[in-house]
Structure formats: C-alpha cells, structure tokens
C-alpha cells in the first residue's frame, strides 16, 4: 500500500502545471474547489469521523472569513499573517460549539442547537457593523503574501494549493493516529469508548476545535478569493452545500471530502446553461447518494483502486 499512496503526491504536482492550460475563469473555479476541500475536510472530522450531527460548519467558515477580513481591514495585518488567527478563531468557535455536546446533547438536539448557533452568528455579523460592515458587507483588500500582492487567480492558486496540501496531509496524519482511532471508537459506540477509558470529552473538544481550525483557514481563503463578505453568504443554503460535499464525497473519508468538493463545486459550473434546476438536481443527487451509495464517492473510488482507500477506515 505504502508505495502506491505516494502516487497521491502526483495530484498536487500535476496541479502545479494546471494554470498553463486554463483561463482565469476556470482557475477561479479551481481555487473555489480548494476552499471547499478544506470546508469538506474540516466538516467531515466532526460529522464523519466523530459521528456527531453538528450543523455549525457554516459558523466556523464565516468566523474564519470574517476574522481574516477584520484583521486585514481593521488592524492592517497582511493576509498571510491572518491565516493562522482565522483558523484559531474557527477553532475557538469549534470549542464553543462543542459545549452542548460536552453537556451530553446529542443527535437531533445537537443538530438543532448547532443550527441555531450558525444562524446566531449570521445575526452577529449583521449586528456588529463597526467590525463586519454589517448588512452592506465587508470589502477585503487584495491578499498579500510577504509584501507580494495576490492579484491574479493563478497567484492565489499556488498559495492555496500549498495551504491545502499541508492541511490535508496533517489532518490525514491525525486521523491515522491514536486520535483518529479514538474519534472512530466514539462514533461507533460512545459508551464502549468511555468504558475503554478513552477520555471522550477531551476528544469531542479536540475534534470540534480541529474541525473549526481547518474550516476557519478555508474561510480565510474564501475571504481572499471572493474579496467581499456579506452575512447572507453564510446562510443555510451554504450549509446544504457543505453537507452535499461530505455526503456525496463519503462520510468520514478524507479522499471523499476532496472529491466531493471537486464534484459539488464544479458541476453547477458545467450546467450553467440550465439555470433553475440547480436546487432540484442538488436535492435529487443527495437523495440518490444516500439511497444507493451511502458511503459516497469514496467507496466507489476505493472499489476502483485500493489507493483511494482511507487507511484509517475499517474494511467493512
């Protein structure tokens, strides 16, 4: 298995040459995919790996994006220095979102509560105009990297690619480690995990914080890519997009998050000429995936070639 997995490195390497062949529109869509790869990877940690019904991902995403934008606009910090703080802001939101879970709120209760948390954050963006620009939105200056301004989509692409590769590899390592196995143990049977002396509370906190961090960094990338944040961008439609990514990609699968992000972000662009059908198609696709491909695209790919199999997932 080991040698074939190194083939994965060909993916980002091949991607390096991509900008030579495509125009800025396609490049933008690919950059957006990179943002949503992090969104999917982060979301999947709590939902797929820890197995919790937490709907707070849009809050992490929005908080990351606004944190990055507020640090750049209010404090004049260059964009690249806001990436980590944006991730930390997301992680903090993750910790906050884990409080009900730590208090024993589970299943639908947790779902409803985190849904309310996400909506409450959207309200907060609207109600703090001195920081967020309120309803009118916040225009973010062009991202800056060591004094080098990211003006073109190609420049953004290379920076995003590095960030995404680093984070995806790191998350992969974590999921393959003892921590990842503890997540899966909790997902499979929380009481049994606790009985085996796994400190479940600590792992809940860790999973939510990690998820928040990854998605928060995605938010910082979103701020740099889109350049204008408005509270309405972080609504429940955004949440359905995030869900679609992990459902279609495959719950709990890192590989799935990546392919889910590619598919869900790129497909609507391919079907631009038939506007109006998007919501209908989206709904139907998710229904079909749940019914006929419950482990998502990842399970299909794993059947295609073992290299796509996430090592930390069992063979069931």
């Amino acid at each position: 298995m080991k040698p074939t997995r190194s083939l994965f490195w060909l993916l980002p390497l091949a991607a390096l040459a991509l900008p030579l062949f495509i125009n800025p529109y396609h490049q933008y869509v690919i950059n957006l995919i990179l943002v949503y790869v992090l969104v999917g990877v982060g979301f999947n940690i709590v939902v797929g790996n820890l197995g919790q019904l937490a709907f707070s991902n849009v809050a992490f995403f929005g908080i990351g994006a606004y944190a990055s934008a507020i640090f750049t606009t209010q404090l004049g910090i260059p964009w690249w220095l806001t990436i980590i703080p944006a991730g930390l802001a997301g992680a903090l939101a993750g910790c906050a979102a884990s409080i009900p879970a730590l208090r024993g709120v589970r299943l639908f209760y947790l779902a409803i509560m985190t849904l309310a948390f996400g909506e409450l954050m959207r309200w907060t963006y609207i109600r703090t105009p001195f920081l967020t620009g309120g309803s009118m939105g916040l225009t973010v200056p062009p991202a800056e990297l060591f004094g080098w301004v990211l003006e073109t989509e190609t420049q953004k692409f290379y920076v995003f690619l590095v960030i995404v590769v680093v984070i995806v590899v790191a998350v992969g390592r974590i999921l393959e480690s003892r921590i990842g196995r503890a997540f899966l143990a909790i997902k499979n049977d929380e009481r049994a995990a606790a009985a085996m002396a796994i400190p479940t509370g600590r792992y809940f906190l860790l999973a939510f914080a990690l998820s928040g961090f990854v998605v928060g960094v995605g938010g910082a990338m979103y701020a740099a890519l889109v350049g204008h944040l408005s509270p309405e961008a972080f609504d429940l439609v955004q949440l359905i997009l995030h869900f679609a990514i992990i459902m279609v990609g495959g719950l709990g699968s890192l590989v799935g998050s990546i392919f889910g992000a590619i598919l869900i972000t790129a497909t609507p662009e391919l079907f631009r000429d038939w506007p109006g059908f998007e919501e209908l198609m989206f709904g139907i696709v998710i229904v079909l995936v749940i019914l006929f491909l419950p482990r998502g695209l990842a399970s299909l790919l794993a059947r295609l070639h073992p290299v796509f199999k996430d090592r930390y997932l069992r063979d069931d």
Partner: protein
Amino acid sequence: MLSLLPQLLVSGIAIGMLYALIGLSMTILYRATTVVNFGHGDLVMAGAYMVLIFTIHVSLPFIPALLLSLAALFGFGYLLHRAFIWPIIAGPHLSLAMMAIAIGYAVRGLVRLEYGSEMAKMPRPFEEQFFFAYNTVMTLDEITFCVVVVVMLIASYFVFSKTRFGRIVQAMFQTQRGAALVGINVRLYNNLIWGVGCALGALGGVMLGLILVLDPDAGVWTLLRGFAAMTLGGFGSLYGAVIGGLIIGVLEKVLGTYVSTAFIDITCYLVIIVVLLVRPRGLFGQHATLRI
C-alpha cells in the same frame, strides 16, 4: 409603553398558534418514528402552494382546494417515508437528517422553477375583519388560527390517547422493535403518521398563506420556529409543542417591542440554545441528554 402589553399578548398568542401547529406536526412525526424531519418547513410551504395551484390553475373553490392540498401532502408524506426514510431507518442519523433536508431542498427547487420570479398570493376564503376590545385589536385570521389549532390539539389528544391507532403509535414511540414483535405493521403505521404529520404541517402552511405573500424560502424560517416550539415544550410532548409555540410567539413580540426589533428574528435561536443548555428536556419532555 406598558399599555401595549395586552396587544402584544394577543397578537403574540395568535402568531404563536401558527408556530404551535407547525411544532405539533413535527412532534407527531417525531413521536411515531423518533426521526426529526429537517425538510418539514419546505413541505409546510408546499401545502400553501398546492392551495394556490388548485384555486388558480384548477379554479376550485377554497375549501375543496384546501382538502385536496391536505390530501396531496398526506400522500406525499406517506410516500416520503415509505420510499426514502424507511429504507435507511436503521442507518446513521445523519443520513436521515440529510435525506429530509435534500427532499425539502428539491421541493423548494421545484416550487421555485414555477413561482421563483413572481410573488404569488393565495386567494383568501374570507374577507379580513378587525375586532376591537379593551384597547386591543384582533383579526379574523388570528381568531381562525386559534380555533384551528385548538381543534387540532384536541383532535390529536383524542386520537393519540383514545383510539387503537393512537395506542399503537404510542407503543411504537416506546420501542419500534417491541411493537414489531407483537405483530404491529410498524412500516405502515409510520407511513401513515408521516402522512398525517405532513398534512398537518400543510394546514399550517395554508394558514401562513392567509397572512403572507408566498415565498419558496419561507420554509427555513418556518422550520426553525417549529424546532424552537418543540425544543421549548420538550421533544415528543404534544401540548408541550403548543405551549412552546405560544411562548415563543409572545416572546418575539415582547422582545421586539421593548428591547429591539433586531431580537425578533433570533428569539427562536436563543430559546433553542438556552433551553438545550439549561434544561435540555424542555418544559414537558423526557430525558434528552446522554450521561456517561
């Protein structure tokens, strides 16, 4: 400002009746199948749009259109459970939640294809009238809400506690497996309950259609009010959902008037968060948290 309080109570309770009905319909689904329907809001709106289609495009009078709309949503709920929820009922909760969300989203998309670029208003069955008493005003719509919801609550109480159907559903709420063991056709009863829940939700949508211009997106808004009513009342409690809905209706008005209109929209989120943190079982519900 204090003199406004009676008026706020009256209109708060009236609109709370609407939340109560939506909460009630979600509770009925939840009681039977212990599944929360995250797509319920869109089905509520679908009920109102069905009346619009039957009255405008098929030119039926209001009452037959209403009955047909409820029947259509009953059928939809039945099929929804039979074809999409039941096959995955043993799967992870996330799949159940997502299934409902996805179906709701598809329904919204379908509505938008037809009504996306215009504002439609459901025809009214009666003229709007105002009644004044003790410095407060109430509309005929609001009185209708109260009557409909009280009747529905009494009916559900009767059905759930006095009929064979109700007792079977109660048994299934306790344990689906046990109910199956004693020879109950669990699937059929669950199908029926989903039909009833959706039809009841559709009734809420039609009432909403009396006072609102129809909007395909109103479903999300509706869903969260229903959740808040359910959470406050306690999951699974029928009268809890109704009381919860009424409290939220009044709370929105009181906060909006005495504190700030900015709070109207987040009243239900605050209620959900506070209740689940402080008293997760709500006012009348049973245990809701996991203790390890």
